[in-house]
């Protein structure tokens, strides 16, 4: 399956990535060759086979429903990672315009 540059643009939009023109052409080629390779799966008979998300049979692992406060040093370390802040608040661009 050969991806067109338009499809690559669409995938880049879904992925929230910006691409240069040169990358658009190159990625179309490289992604196509990978998709062509993985297409061999379409020939495998998987009728009656259940999908397997996880290799270890674990289900519904519950934690205690209790608040676990973070210590002050960790809180400050996390705040200091904000790219932009006002006091203890994270500054972002408007979500709704």
């Amino acid at each position, binding site marked *: 399956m050969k991806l067109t540059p338009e499809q690559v643009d669409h995938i880049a939009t879904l992925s929230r990535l910006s691409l240069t023109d040169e990358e658009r052409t190159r990625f179309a080629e490289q992604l196509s060759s990978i998709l062509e390779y993985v297409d061999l799966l379409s020939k495998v008979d998987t009728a009656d086979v259940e*999908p397997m998300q996880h290799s270890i049979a674990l289900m519904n692992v519950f934690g205690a429903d209790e608040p676990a406060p973070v210590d002050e040093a960790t809180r400050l370390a996390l705040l200091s990672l904000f790219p932009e802040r006002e006091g203890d608040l994270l500054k972002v661009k408007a979500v709704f315009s």
Partner: protein
Amino acid sequence: MDLSRATLTEVVAGFGKQQFSSREVVDACLAVAEKNEKGTHAYVQLFADEARRAADEADTRRRFSLSKSPLDGVPVAVKDNMLLIGSRTTAGSNIIKNYESPYDATVVKRLREAGAIFLGKTNLDEFAMGSSTETSCHGPTRNPWDLRKIPGGSSGGSAVAVAEGSATIALGSDTGGSIRQPAAMCGVVGLKPTYGRVSRYGLMAMASSLDQIGPVARCVEDTALLLHAIEGRDPMDSTSVELLEGWSLPTAWPESLKGLRVGMPKEYFVSGMDPDVESSVRAAVKVLEGLGAEIKEVSLPNAGHALAVYYVLMPSEVSANLARFDGIRYGVRKMGDSLEGTYRKSRGEGFGREVRRRIMLGTYALSSGYYDAYYLKALKVRRLIAQDFSNAFQDVDCIVTPTSPMVAWDVGEKTDDPLSMYLADIYTVSVNVAGLPAISVPCGLSNGLPVGLQLIGKHFDEKTILTAAKAYETAAGHRATMRPPSA
């Protein structure tokens, strides 16, 4: 004794007999790390002063018989995708180049509590995506056996540190072979534990259903010691499991492998393998046989599908996991003219090419209209692959394969051809797909470059592969020759 070359087992014994101090071992490792900074470039950060101070403290504790554990004072290197307080954790990516670790990964916390000394953070492919340690924002790492060659990847820095003597032991992470393949290419031992054996808390997630942290070391016994220090259930990782008694690691190391049934998958020993790799691996199988193991042919009929399954599932999980890097809460923020513009610019400029390729591949495989054909299909074939292993393990106790079909290639050789790079993972990815444990142990040299032997075990049966690998290592006697010429 050259302390930069000592095994963990020797270091622990030497501390016990007061033959040398932690400070001496740390100094020996740091000297190698500093000498090779521009050569192999195993480390992206070194904590020389802190490590020396911590070593002195460990030595003081030992003098007063207050050591925290046998690992107290042992120098360890940590792959730069695991959080370690007091260090940046960059995952080799520009998007989080200045990210200061806000807490310790569970494996780091456990080693810290055991008194281990952190020498530094080791280089990797960006977000652990690669087989060559060339895509890091810090520049490539090179193989100490030949600086023109790649060290394997993605835990290339950790494997090089152990191979060259700039750390006694190291932590790596393995999603499709990222511990075993660089260990093989650098002539050291690397183990990927069973999925769920080691906590992933504080490891930057690549593909959550495949990732495991594991040890890199100079000998088999060392990997067992390090694994023992980091394994076990952690409430912070809901996929880590309580270890049963029967799953414990070996404490004795029998020389004979009498009674052990070793499977050779017929699908793996056909074509595509470098002839030197094949002959080294076949010679290793003869050694196992000489030790009393029974060699049996087994069949993994879906082996040929494993790489395709991996290259659908892994990018799909990558695309979800890396959605968090959006320039909002941490990392590099590049302002666009809208919120979406900020996302696209931050991610487009912050992520390197291979990371973006995989995000896009995964996004495509999960997108409306393609989900069933790619993602769901791969999940079904995943079950077939896991069933193949279960069937084979009815007849054998472990499975032997090469770790990599080839030895280390030239730096730059495959960077523009992702598919040919992916093909290097052909023997390692199915282990992650099925969640099994596997170890790579050196089994010879081809044109002066190390070859690795892979032993795959049943779920949580690390004991069998460690026992077999150790008996092989002793009988084959490669350790004496596994020293890079430049080290």
